[in-house]
């Protein structure tokens, strides 16, 4: 008896399996055709950062570096400078002369927007941040102030700022290396070569 019941069970189960797959065959597919159809993210999705302006065109960022202090990935670099009457950039006393976010380090935690006392920085909905070069992952202030950039044919960000081409990767952006090496030399000189 056992072979017969077993065979019957096997045939029944195979039939159930076949009908299940046939149902999925007739059902609607769930593939998203990515480059043509882009997945809509939720409104509070944390994507590419954006620096905001006041209605009168002045920057909200006052260069306080609280975002850089809050950043667990240490990917924000702010260099502040004084506003003058001739050269007024932000609404406060100082403004961010340099505001850079290294997108390849950023973990999109949103601590920077929580830390910001002026709501100058928020995380937006733009998530197509892939690029071909590590240097290009450092977003400068003009890029963060602008709307999400236009993509080129490869879906890569079309740069607002052109930088010297490098054929090797570097831990630091090209335009920083000189400054950093000078600072390091100064530090070595003041410390007298000893360990801190």
């Amino acid at each position, binding site marked *: 008896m056992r072979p017969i019941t077993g065979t019957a069970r096997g045939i029944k189960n*195979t039939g159930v399996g076949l009908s299940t797959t046939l149902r999925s*065959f007739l*059902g609607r597919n769930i593939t998203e055709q990515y480059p043509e159809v882009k997945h809509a993210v939720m409104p509070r999705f944390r994507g590419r950062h954006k620096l905001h302006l006041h209605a009168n065109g002045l920057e909200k960022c006052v260069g306080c570096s609280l975002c850089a202090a809050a950043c667990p990935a240490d990917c924000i670099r702010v260099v502040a400078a004084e506003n003058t009457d001739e050269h007024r950039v932000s609404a406060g006393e100082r403004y961010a002369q340099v505001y850079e976010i290294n997108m390849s380090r950023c973990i999109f935690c949103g601590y920077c927007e929580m830390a910001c006392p002026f709501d100058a920085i928020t995380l937006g909905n733009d998530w197509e941040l892939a690029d071909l070069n590590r240097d290009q992952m450092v977003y400068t202030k003009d890029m963060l102030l602008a709307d999400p950039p236009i993509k080129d044919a490869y879906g890569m960000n079309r740069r607002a700022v052109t930088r010297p081409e490098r054929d090797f990767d570097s831990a630091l952006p090209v335009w920083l290396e000189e400054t950093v090496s000078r600072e390091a030399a100064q530090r070595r000189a003041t410390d007298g070569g000893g360990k801190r």
Partner: protein
Amino acid sequence: MELTEIIGLFLKAFLIGNLIMLVFALMTWIERRLLSFFQYRLGPNRVGPFGLLQPIADLLKLIRKENFQPDSVSSLMHLLAPLATLFFALAAFAVVPFGISDWNIFGWHTAPGMAPDLDVGVLFAIAMSGLGGYGVIVGGWASNSKYALLGALRACAQLISYEVSLTLSILPIIMMTNSLSMSEIATGHIGWEIGSWHPWFIVWAPAGFVIFLLSALAEANRAPFDHAEAEQELVGGFHTEFGGLRYAAFANAEYLHLFAISAIGVTFFLGGPTIPFLSDPNSVEFWGLSWGALLGLTSFLVKMAMFLFLFIWIRATVPRLRYDRLMRLGWKALLPIATVQVLVTALLVSQGWGKV
């Protein structure tokens, strides 16, 4: 045989052979698309309209690959194995009847298939389909690799086990038609009736059909019987050490094998190129032409497509059997049932029940 006839036969074989190759290319795309649909996906749809040029892209990729051969392999066998598999898979098509009556090509009457109709067509088809296994075994052995050898051993054991059931499953029909010619078997169901109805042989031998289906899957190394190349267990099985066009030859042969087995199944169980409720397709005439040959061919290809869809459907559904269960199914289930089927049919034939 006249020279013109030989040239004509050669041209016909060349054309049909290449058409089959074209269908193979299409089949890789169809299978990937259908499998995707079974899994709520879309499959390759980027190259050309609906992804139809995907096979060409795949082919270009494989052609451009290095014709690599590992140091330790037996080089002649390593080269010959894919070619042999391909040759035998294609040779099995020689006796497949793609039409009922002769094909009339500009007044030249010829058998509806690649070769002249053989009196022992069934034996030839089964033999070629079995010989295809040699390519797999030799390829796996010549590779001098554990995985390839294991794959080849599995293929070998599987082939022996299921070849028996395959042949036994079609034996009742050979007994009923009293012929080994594929074209006579294709139209053989006319000679048998239930009431005034001439059903296909699938009605006369339903158990045989199921056994044939399972054995065909095993013969063609298809899921759920793809133990010879089981990716998850044996890397690539017998074709682990093959790349580029040599691998393509194996893949090609596997699909051709599948086509050949489907064609044999259609010929035996689904009435071949005959059309239900249309006893004489040659009587269909319009525009002053007889469309019998084309109708027969279409009927045959539609039935083959049904077979192939079933194979893909099964591949999308059933997981691979454990190897000992594969053997148990082959020897302890399919073989006895097939034997009983043969005995029952022997009774039927000897008593002449249902014979016209």
